[in-house]
């Protein structure tokens, strides 16, 4: 039992070292995680599909040949295509869809030797902030099963927090990696737009979407990123990462200029979150950081601009789900229009429909300039805001989300309140910058996330600062109760 507990508390880089040294085998590690899934996933519902046999087979192979990520049991958000393994995007539309190809980011990890544990739950087509928009039931937060794990990568974040994966892949369009990482007390990195291939990531909003790691600590995020980055000939928006990814050293924050974004603190931040955040800032300062006040003057328009641009792109990206070639097709339709209508009515949930309608409207003739055109201008202003702020500071910080994990059902009746959950993370996606969330402390026993933002392609420096913050904040073990229960 204690052996198993130890295995579940290992970070990926620790496990990696132990496997290399022959202290632990990939099979043992995988078995421990599969056991934890067996034990808890009925409650947590982090996984839509557990690929148990495949995982056992892969870990068996890992025992005999070693890639750089050899034997690390990994969860994959179900928005990433996996050849031969159902990829549903948590939608009825793709309930039985098995892709003929594997997403580049997944393939890169597989080539490096990971073990695939399964596909994780999410908000349908990555649209949502609580994983309650999954067509296959919500995921629950391992810190409090009555609460949401955040979203849309809630399954991946919950899996890591529950010890059901050593790390996981998520995707982030407006905060979908960072906000659930914050809610579940784990680390989540949204990389610079273009640094990780989107080929095989089922598109929600193409100019925002990025794949990134959800991990137990900052070093793990860097380790996974080393294998995710790189230009992909199949994704024209991907680039070779100019500086590569370094594993952060155990260093303090001496000389790091950190700006606290004032507009992101302006209102709506829960007192408990604010308190944790303020304490964290003090610790960063104590660790040598130079703290100042930063400003993103146009960030108050970020949410509005995002909810024009992202749905506009989504309305086109989701047009391919028409019942013609794959996925759901409504039965008994009369004629092609009726087939489209019935299929899309049955296949999509409310939030997806809402965003398709928003986007379609925003792009309609006569409205384009007033909505899409205007929102693009706001996006440019926000890009400029960040450039200005990042000329004064190395790193910008804010709380990752204005609240801690809320109760299931608490916000489902009010989409706008739900959208506000991403108010601190969305500006980063508009600017295409890298942002990381790491545990900053607890409010009423629930994790609070600290968001750190850096210039484009500054992942190495950003993760180094995050590592400095991690040491400064010094929470000790961040293992959730579901991992600690096993001791």
């Amino acid at each position, binding site marked *: 039992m204690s052996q198993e507990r130890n295995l579940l508390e290992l970070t990926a880089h620790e496990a990696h070292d132990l496997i290399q040294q022959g202290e632990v085998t990939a099979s043992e590690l995988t078995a421990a995680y599969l056991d934890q899934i067996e034990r808890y996933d009925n409650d947590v519902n982090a996984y839509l599909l557990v690929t148990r046999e495949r995982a056992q087979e892969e870990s068996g192979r890992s025992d005999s040949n070693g890639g750089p990520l050899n034997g690390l049991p990994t969860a994959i958000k179900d928005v*990433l*295509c996996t050849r031969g393994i159902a*990829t549903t*995007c948590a939608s009825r539309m*793709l309930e039985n*869809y098995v*892709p*003929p*190809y594997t*997403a580049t980011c997944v393939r890169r990890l597989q080539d490096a030797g990971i073990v695939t544990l399964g596909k994780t739950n999410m908000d349908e087509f990555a649209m949502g902030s609580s994983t309650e928009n999954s067509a296959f039931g919500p995921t629950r937060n391992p810190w409090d099963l009555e609460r949401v794990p955040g979203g849309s990568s809630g399954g991946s974040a919950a899996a890591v927090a529950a010890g059901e994966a050593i790390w996981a892949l998520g995707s982030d369009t407006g905060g979908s990696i960072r906000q659930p990482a914050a809610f579940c007390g784990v680390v989540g990195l949204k990389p610079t737009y273009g640094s990780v291939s*989107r*080929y*095989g*990531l*089922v*598109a929600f*909003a*193409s*100019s925002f979407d990025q794949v990134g790691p959800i991990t137990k600590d900052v070093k793990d995020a860097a380790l996974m990123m080393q294998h995710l980055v790189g230009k992909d*000939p*199949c*994704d*024209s*928006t991907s680039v070779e990462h100019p500086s590569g990814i370094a594993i952060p050293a155990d260093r303090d924050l001496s000389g790091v200029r950190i700006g606290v974004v004032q507009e992101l603190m302006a209102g709506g931040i829960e007192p408990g979150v604010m308190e944790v955040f303020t304490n964290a800032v003090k610790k960063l300062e104590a660790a040598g950081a130079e703290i100042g006040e930063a400003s993103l003057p146009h960030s108050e328009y970020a949410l509005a601009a995002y909810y024009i641009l992202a749905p*506009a*792109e989504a*309305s*086109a990206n*989701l*047009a*391919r*789900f*028409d019942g*013609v*070639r*794959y996925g759901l097709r409504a039965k008994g339709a009369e004629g*092609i229009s009726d087939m*489209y209508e019935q299929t899309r009515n049955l296949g999509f949930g409310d939030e997806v429909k809402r965003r398709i309608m928003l986007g*379609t409207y925003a*792009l*309609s*003739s006569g409205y*384009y300039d007033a909505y*899409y055109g205007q929102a693009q201008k706001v996006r440019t202003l926000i890009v400029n805001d960040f450039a200005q702020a990042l000329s004064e500071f190395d790193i910008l910080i804010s709380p990752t989300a204005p609240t801690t994990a809320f109760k299931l059902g608490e916000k489902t009746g009010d989409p706008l309140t739900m959208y506000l959950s991403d108010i601190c993370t969305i500006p980063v996606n508009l600017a295409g910058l890298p942002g990381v969330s790491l545990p900053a402390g607890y409010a009423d026993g629930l994790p609070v996330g600290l968001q750190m933002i850096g210039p484009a392609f500054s992942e190495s420096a950003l993760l180094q600062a995050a590592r400095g913050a991690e040491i400064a904040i010094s929470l000790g073990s961040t293992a959730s109760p579901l991992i600690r229960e096993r001791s």
Partner: protein
Amino acid sequence: MSQQWEPVIGLEIHVELSTKSKMFCGCEVGFGGEPNTRTCPVCAAHPGALPVMNREAINSIGKIALSLECEIAERSIFHRKNYFYPDLPKGYQISQYDLPFAVEGHLDVTVDGKMYPVGIERVHQEEDTGKNIHAGEGGRIAGALYSLIDFNRSGIPLVEVVTKPAIHSPQVARAFLNKLKNTLKYLDVSDCNMEEGSLRCDANVSVRPAGQTELGVKTELKNMNSFKHLEKGLTKEIERQIALLEAGEKVVQQTVHYEVATGEVHPMRSKEYAHDYRYFPEPDLAPLEISEEFIRKVRSRMPELPSMRSERYVHELGLPEYDADVLTSSRDLADFFEETLVFYNDAKTVSNWLMGELLGVLNASGKELGEMGISAEGTAQLLKMIDAGQVSKNIGKEVFANMCATGKSAAQIVEEQGLTQISDTGELEAMIAAVIAANPVQVEQFRGGKEQVLGFFVGQVMKQTQGRANPQVVNELLRKQLAGS
């Protein structure tokens, strides 16, 4: 008719490029084949698949834009054109919208000796759709039992060429399309096969009272799959619009379908017409930046275009302008001409032969040069046989037609059919003596100074030899015998 009407026509031509692979994926470009065998996650629009631009296609559109003397944009962008149709797998077509690849060119055409300038509005890059196949009831969607979709065509690079509304007759429209096709063939960027759909032409048509500058209400005429049908469809549509206006009715802006089988035009119900394509910039592709360097490179790789080639024929080969224009009106013909010259170095003789005989055979058969059995070398051999007196010029024409039809060599045909020219004086002398003896009246006329009668005697000899007698020898012998006896 009390009023003069002026038709105004703008053409939208879609050209499927004959690149190796599709516009945004690595699938092979081709026509026909087993349905859905040339598809991949990208062109079948699987979730998560992304487009990657085909550089070869950009080279091709660069050539097209330069040949039309367009201004190539330094920066053009791709847009998504959104609409639902089963043959459009992504639910949007990647196309270009307000920043197209090239603008403001022209291609001028000559009809009946008169030059008509045709301005080019824009040239842009996009991708083709799949093909719906309707089962039962003659392949039309109405009454079909079910429909199938073949995505082999999905994603093939398409270039759209849009003219200004600057064409005022169906004849000029046809001549324009023909010249454009010829130019594209010269550039070797497309098969330009209208029946297979690698060259497609729609037309915007309106009419207005002659002298009026404001445009009338236009219709969009579709489904003309040959030059003949383009001209016919436009003629019918112009007639339809004039009839409406003269009856005091209005032209409705709508799509008009040309019925290939009957040659009639049918307005479609306009319910579906009000499309809102919700164009927006394609986020999966970077803007297309075209450098001076790129343009220089494409220009240096441009083949010789018809106008340049025609000029060369006049200046270097000494051909009349008319000959040069006719020969260069098709790349195939001009290539054939030049290849024949390699084996038979007399430009005017070859030109006469091709313009007279080869074009005659092509017109009569309605076939393309490539479908003929004739080769340039074979043509040169035939010309040499005529020069050598082995076969008469007239018989040579029959032999040529036969060569085109069968692919046999001239020598083989002459041998098989016994068409060798008779130049043997002994054989001819006896024949001539008999002819003179049988026509005393004409002999008198000739001797009385009526020179033209000689032709009568030649004709008689030719008749007896079925045209095989060598006319020069016959002439000589006739004069000798008529003078002598």
